[in-house]
């Protein structure tokens, strides 16, 4: 045990000193912070300058043109940098030929958008037809605004026709709602902002992401450490002092320390950020306990797989091809997290909870999403996961013992199977 700890200690210190580790540790929160900051800054501010957008209009109802022009003018006054230019294309002979002409202008690029209002738009089943031709992604937002001008114009005119008081309607439709989160004690209640609700959604994801990073983030260090020992032939000297299993155990333990360091620092940073923003994230002590249990088991599983992979490869490049299928499995919850959060007790979530590689991530997602996972289910998943961990460690240890001393050609699957059968 003393030796395992010594190996672990070296692994931890030497990894923590590498540039990759320090940069990864600091950059991830910084990048997330920068993204959040800029998203806020951009969405809060006014749109930047944009070329004028020319909108052709054919108003078959012949009643709305003025209203629309007013709303366009209002907009242009407020946004001198991004003008919407309205061009009327009135019916000359018949509606169809006019519309065809409008479409041609759209194709020619004279119009950026072409709108046709049906004759019976106000009282019948008519439509607003909004034509575009190869719209630029940059204009999509503007088109949305323009569409709204037309709809508002039609809507307002309809109120007038039906003699509905707009102010009355607005008053009737306004039902104030305040979302309050009651704190543990009286008087601690606080208004739940929109951010709070989003945070509520993000907490499960954050926890899952932490587990993911805690496992996968250490993977690169594990592989490079094994490859270094293999390539520089340190391995024989090491094996004259420790057994292969002690070496493997020490590595896994040392990098577990790295994973825990990263997670602790990131959680602390996230918690501090959330408190600073006045967000109340509901983390219970039970959740933390489950988190630790699932993380440790998940980490053991992942890192044991990596020791197996690392030991049979000679270069980092070789490991990548073997890592691909492994990573594909581990990113499943990352891809499907939204669906899993929405129905944490659904069949998919339940089934994935029993697939050992993703069990930790899925279970933490479900638990943090506030699903009523029964104690039995927690117990069962932990048992399944623990069994998987033992099987994988046993297998990995056998592969590690032989693979670590093999140089040259990477062994094929058949040869590895033979190692497993050896005592």
């Amino acid at each position, binding site marked *: 045990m003393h030796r395992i700890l010594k190996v672990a200690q070296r692994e931890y210190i030497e990894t923590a000193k590498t540039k990759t580790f320090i940069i990864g540790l600091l950059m991830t929160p910084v990048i997330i912070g920068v993204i959040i900051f800029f998203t806020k800054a951009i969405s809060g501010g006014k749109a930047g300058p944009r070329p004028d957008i020319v909108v052709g209009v054919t108003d078959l109802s012949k009643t709305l043109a003025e209203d629309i022009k007013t709303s366009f003018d209002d907009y242009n006054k407020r946004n001198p940098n991004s003008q919407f230019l309205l061009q009327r294309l009135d019916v000359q002979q018949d509606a169809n030929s006019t519309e065809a002409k409008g479409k041609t202008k759209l194709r020619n690029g004279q119009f950026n958008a072409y709108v046709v209002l049906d004759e019976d738009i106000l009282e019948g089943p008519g439509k607003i037809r909004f034509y575009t031709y190869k719209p630029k992604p940059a204009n999509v937002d503007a088109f949305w605004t323009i569409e709204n001008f037309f709809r508002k114009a039609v809507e307002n005119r309809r109120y007038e026709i039906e003699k509905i008081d707009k102010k009355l309607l607005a008053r009737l439709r306004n039902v104030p709602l305040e979302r309050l989160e009651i704190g543990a004690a009286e008087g601690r209640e606080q208004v739940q902002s929109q951010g709070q609700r989003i945070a509520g959604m993000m907490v499960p994801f954050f926890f899952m992401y932490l587990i993911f990073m805690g496992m996968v983030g250490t993977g690169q260090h594990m592989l490079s450490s094994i490859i270094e020992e293999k390539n520089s032939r340190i391995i024989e000297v090491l094996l004259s002092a420790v057994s292969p299993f002690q070496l493997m155990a020490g590595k896994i333990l040392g990098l577990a320390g790295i994973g825990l360091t990263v997670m602790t620092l990131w959680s602390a940073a996230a918690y501090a950020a959330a408190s600073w923003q006045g967000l109340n994230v509901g983390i219970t002590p039970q959740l933390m306990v489950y988190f630790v249990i699932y993380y440790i088991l998940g980490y053991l599983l992942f890192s044991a797989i990596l020791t197996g992979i690392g030991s049979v490869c000679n270069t980092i490049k070789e490991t990548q091809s073997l890592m691909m299928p492994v990573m594909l499995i581990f990113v499943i919850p990352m891809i499907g997290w939204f669906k899993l959060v929405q129905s944490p007790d659904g069949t998919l979530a339940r089934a994935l909870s029993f697939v050992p590689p993703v069990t930790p991530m899925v279970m933490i997602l479900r638990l943090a999403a506030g699903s009523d996972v029964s104690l039995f289910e927690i117990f069962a998943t932990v048992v399944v996961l623990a069994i998987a961990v033992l099987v994988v460690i046993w297998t990995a240890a056998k592969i590690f013992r032989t693979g670590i*001393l093999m140089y040259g050609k990477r062994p094929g699957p058949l040869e590895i199977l033979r190692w497993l059968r050896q005592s």
Partner: protein
Amino acid sequence: MNAATLENVCKSFGQVHAVDNLSVQVPAGSVYGFLGPNGAGKTTTIRMIMNIIRPDSGRIEIFQDGQIERVKNRIGYMPEERGLYRKMTVRKVLAYFGAIKGLDTKELAHRVPYWLEQVDLAGWADKRVEELSRGMHQKLQFAVTVINNPELVILDEPFSGLDPLNQDLLKNIILEMRNEGKTVIFSTHVMHEAEKLCDFILLINKGKSILDGRLDEIRSRQSAHTVSVELDGDAGFVERLPMVRAVKSEGKRLDVTLTDADTQQFLQALMQRARVRAFEVKVPSLHEIFVNLVGASDAQDS
């Protein structure tokens, strides 16, 4: 007592018999040289002793224990392929390997500086391993091997890559260790190194032992048959002596190969017939023994 015992050890890699039915006994307190040409099976044998690879059949005991894992603390092993953590400092590497070989902090505190001094690396203690030259790297590797004061030291090609000064430094340390009662096994294909150091040698070729025993016995056994003489007067009678098998003359000097007869009888026979100006029982160098025997065993095989 034997420090290491190998009994009928075999190891094949595919079709190649790397080690073929090898038996050796390494007495405690001796310096044992494993000699042989490249690819003879020296490294494979050493790796099997260290339990890095397992023999296909046969038995290996270290300190009369078949479980090498149990006695690892008492062994120091320097593999043929050297390697140390490149990014760590010299001092830390030495301390780390000392620690995983079971030394506690207190022992490390005096052993690390002691060994750095012994191998002339004290001035480099805080440099990174990657900054060392090849020879210095090798000396550090040796210090790593012996940091835990092992009773049995196994060195695979310890002299390769060292300049003559450092080779002497290493030889002196090895001899010192023998004087302290430690056992040293080392492999080499450079014979004059073995000649100066070994008490025992094992000569292997193509995985088979072709010579094994005390170096001085081997040499006297091999030497008994060749004598170099210089006589006054006609030496034609020498060829006709009953105990003489062949004579090769180089000017006045004759190289005489004897049958099993004693050299002293031969000297007597000469003295009766002529004046003996020079008489030398030729002690073949290990190099000659090596070349002869390996050549003979290769010839036998083909």
